[in-house]
């Protein structure tokens, strides 16, 4: 019996025919890709490193493979609730325990690229989001809130981390925006193009680092270092983001992509 009528097969057919578009939201894992830089007295995030074991040579005549090393938060990556102290006691708070169904979820794209372009320290507030909803419609529940900043276009330049004498400068939400998204819009998580879900200067916010603190304290997730959020529709995209199943892991590099109607 043909199963072409199943929802799953309908989706496959739409992908094959091009009616469903698939866009990669992942930066390439390379030794050059910047990692978050903490004050020197703290442990530092290991960058991506690759050492070739063999490449059709005396160490392996017919095969090519590499040893790779990195932090759980290197490159395009997923933050599990256990990443933050606020989420340390939640159930299923590590990447191996997060329900697999949470790895496929719809996204709403909030475009703050103009504001972030004009002011690298642009802070997303509740008032901004309410105004955004007035113009675009309500943010639906259990969505990734994807912050389009066009920051990914800065990858490979000093403007990506945007370090100055007083630290990093990149856009992000304040506590009011996060409380609103988590408690009143029940978001599944925050998805950003910057190196962290929090603003570059967010350690000076009050409370500090509100995105990490509020997202993970409420069992929500983070996606960082994404690309191509400008290619997504405001509503209607579905994000697939499945981290590696690291035992007790706080996060993981991963391949993230989005599916949405081509028209």
């Amino acid at each position, binding site marked *: 019996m043909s199963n072409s009528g199943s929802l799953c097969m309908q989706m496959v057919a739409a992908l094959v025919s091009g009616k469903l578009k698939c866009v990669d939201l992942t930066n390439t894992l390379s030794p050059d890709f910047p990692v978050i830089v903490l004050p020197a007295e703290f442990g*530092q995030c290991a960058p991506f490193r690759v050492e070739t074991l063999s490449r059709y040579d005396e160490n392996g005549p017919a095969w090519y493979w590499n040893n790779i090393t990195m932090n759980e938060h290197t490159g395009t990556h997923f933050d599990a609730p256990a990443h933050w102290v606020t989420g340390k006691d939640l159930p299923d708070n590590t990447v191996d325990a997060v329900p697999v169904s949470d790895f496929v979820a719809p996204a709403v794209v909030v475009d703050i690229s103009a504001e972030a372009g004009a002011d690298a320290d642009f802070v997303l507030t509740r008032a901004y989001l309410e105004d955004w909803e007035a113009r675009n419609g309500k943010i639906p529940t259990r969505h990734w809130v994807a912050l389009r900043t066009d920051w990914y276009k800065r990858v490979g330049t000093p403007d990506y981390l945007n370090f100055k004498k007083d630290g990093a400068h990149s856009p992000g939400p304040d506590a009011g925006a996060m409380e609103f998204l988590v408690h009143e819009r029940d978001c599944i998580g925050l998805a950003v193009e910057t190196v962290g879900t929090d603003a570059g200067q967010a350690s000076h916010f009050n409370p500090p680092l509100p995105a990490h603190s509020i997202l993970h304290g409420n069992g929500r997730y983070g996606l960082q270092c994404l690309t191509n959020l400008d290619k997504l529709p405001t509503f209607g995209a579905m994000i697939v983001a499945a981290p590696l199943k690291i035992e007790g892991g706080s996060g993981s590099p991963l391949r993230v992509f989005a599916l949405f109607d081509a028209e």
Partner: protein
Amino acid sequence: MSRLGHVSPGLRSRAARAMAVRAGQGRFVLQVCAGCSVATYPPRDRCPQCWGELRWADQPHTAVLLAETTVRATTDNFYREHLPWRIGTVQLDAGPTAVAHLHSDVAVGDQVRMRLVLDRGGNPAMFALPLKETPHMQDDPQLRVFTSAPKHRRVLVTDGRTKLGQEVAYALLEAGASTVFLGNSDRLLRYDGEDQIASTPHVDVVPLDLTDNRSVSELGGLLGGRVDIIVNTAGYVRPGGVSVGSRLATLQTAMDVNASGLMRLAQAFCPAMGARSDDGVNSASAFVDINFVYAMTGNAGFAGFSASAAARQSLIAGLRGEMTSVGIRVASVLCGPIDDEWHQAVPLPKVAPSRIAKAVVQALQDGLEEAYVGDIAEDLAKRWRQDPLLTMREENL
């Protein structure tokens, strides 16, 4: 085609090797008999006068040039490329006469200053210099065979993000280096001193991260054939013990920068350097590693870092063997705690980066294999020569 880097035969007696070690430290030593107190040369196993036991002792490094000759033909592959070659007989103030290589500014009858040098094959030899500095003395072609003077040479300094790397670059330029390629491990993050060093003439900032295989091999591909000297200024220092006060991740990073980083650097650059060890005025010449003197003993409070320094020192010993066989000098410049942010809790004395930079240039100009910089390093080396196990105990208990 480049001249092949021929080296002199390395098969020497144990006594000659012992003399080479001391020559590499810049000392002027001879064997002195414990029985009759007569100094002897060349190195032997027993005293030629009384059959007594010989001991190494520092000697006055003055002599008189008795006679000279110019070698115009030889079967030695290395010297064939460097003929004519002046040698002479010197009367050492220490007693014996010796055959020595001659600087072009010395003549028969002159009082000369003797230096114990290492040839390209790592063998000890006597070299007679003018007693007083003469114009362009360092440029003497025969002297340059035994040294690695930075003058006219292109140097890679591996980490220019630190004060140490920048001071080394300035000192090399001051000593006449034609270009300093200065490594920058993160082109996206600024660093102190960047504007000044990057705008300094003859400094070429290049991307180089010793923890990144790709970065090192890519730069090796670009520069391997035209770097004459490498000075490895990269280092990762963190305080901490073995069982307490440190994290394994810190030790791993130290190993990655200090030991694995050195290995990556050697693999990417040294084979090409070895092929150019006799390539004219700016031949490839030396690999200098700036390391921590606690490589020799370990050190309470910096146990993990000292372990990585020890691994690095061991790699340098191996590299010296490999590179001496192709005519490249490998030198360790060992220092005590540097006056930087990672040694804030360490009491004085601490060694200034500028002093280390001077020692690097000096080691190159004198053709050394080993130099100790600053009071702490000099003191430790002295104690270590007398009693290595006691020194280890002193540094850790």
